[in-house]
């Protein structure tokens, strides 16, 4: 009865069981329970991947590969840590590997600057903060340009930026997830901010030069 109520309330949600219980069911011989784990975490995982990659196909592929790896390694999961955190560590490491494999060359930043990008830069240079926030949601180029800017960072620096800024993870959490020292995380974060500021200034200058 409760299960039916939960199903009708949440739509896609089959049960209200915690992740750890579903994992125990899978390990106990009920692999169907993994479907619910996927349904619960899929959007969050793909949103995290989108912080690293603008290509939807890569996002979906990494998302799927993360679940495949999680399923394969489920026996090694220990319930002391939250399942979401364990799954996130898998995704983060996959994204890190992919970033290292396909690092873009920095000179691609302004090489093919089109009219939409120039308009977005002009908006960032001149509009009010609230206008910028409102317009950014409507413009895909704001997202693409942000990715291009972040592509300047080394994979290590980008990992730290995304985990710190987007996921609100602490330095110690990042260090634990990536297997680095806290000092390394701090240094990477500092370098990443410096580099991003430098390239953002350059981008804004390009926007101003295109106005003339």
């Amino acid at each position, binding site marked *: 009865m409760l299960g039916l109520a939960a199903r009708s309330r949440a739509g896609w949600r089959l049960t209200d069981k915690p992740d750890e219980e579903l994992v125990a069911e899978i390990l106990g011989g009920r692999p169907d329970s993994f479907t619910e784990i996927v349904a619960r975490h899929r959007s969050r995982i793909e949103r995290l991947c989108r912080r690293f990659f603008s290509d939807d196909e890569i996002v979906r592929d990494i998302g799927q590969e993360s679940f495949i790896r999680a399923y394969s390694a489920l026996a090694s999961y220990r319930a002391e840590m939250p399942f979401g955190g364990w799954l996130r560590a898998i995704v983060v490491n996959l994204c890190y590997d992919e970033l290292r494999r396909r690092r873009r060359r920095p000179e691609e930043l302004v090489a093919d600057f089109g009219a939409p990008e120039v308009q977005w830069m002009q908006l960032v240079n001149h509009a009010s*903060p609230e206008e910028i926030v409102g317009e950014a949601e409507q413009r895909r180029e704001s997202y693409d340009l942000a990715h291009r800017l972040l592509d300047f960072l080394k994979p290590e620096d980008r990992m730290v930026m995304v985990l710190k800024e987007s996921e609100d993870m602490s330095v110690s959490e990042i260090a634990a997830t990536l297997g680095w020292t806290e000092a390394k995380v701090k240094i990477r974060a500092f370098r990443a901010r410096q580099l991003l500021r430098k390239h953002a200034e350059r981008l804004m200058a390009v926007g101003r030069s295109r106005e003339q």
Partner: protein
Amino acid sequence: MMNCFEARQEFPALWRKTASVERRAELTAHLATCAKCDHAFRIFALTAPVLHSTNDYSADRAVANSGREFSTADRPRRFASAARAERTVPRWLAMSAAAVIFVLASSAAYISISAPGDSLTDALFAPDAGVNSESAADVFAPELPATENDLAS
């Protein structure tokens, strides 16, 4: 009144629209008066669509794929693209090898035409080439009469 440190701490909340109305008003008022924070916000805005947005910029494409069910048997295409990337070097080598073979074949054809030997030009203009040479060399040619006596007989 909000100071610069507090204002910069509020940038993500402004972007995600999670700041209260009062806090947002304070922040915009601060940005209007502080040129450094205003500049910092504009720099922040360049990466915020990726780092701080909750908006799904690819929603239109995601809807088209929403019916796709996950399956462990569904081999990710990333593997295929990775395999293509790994094949780049052998393909490059194969193309280079094909180019080398083509050049060698072209050179051999050119040499066989231009070098002295059994070519048609040599056969036509060789010093011993003549009308009788064929009969002299050819053992199967009919024997011709050599003198008038031979003809009479």
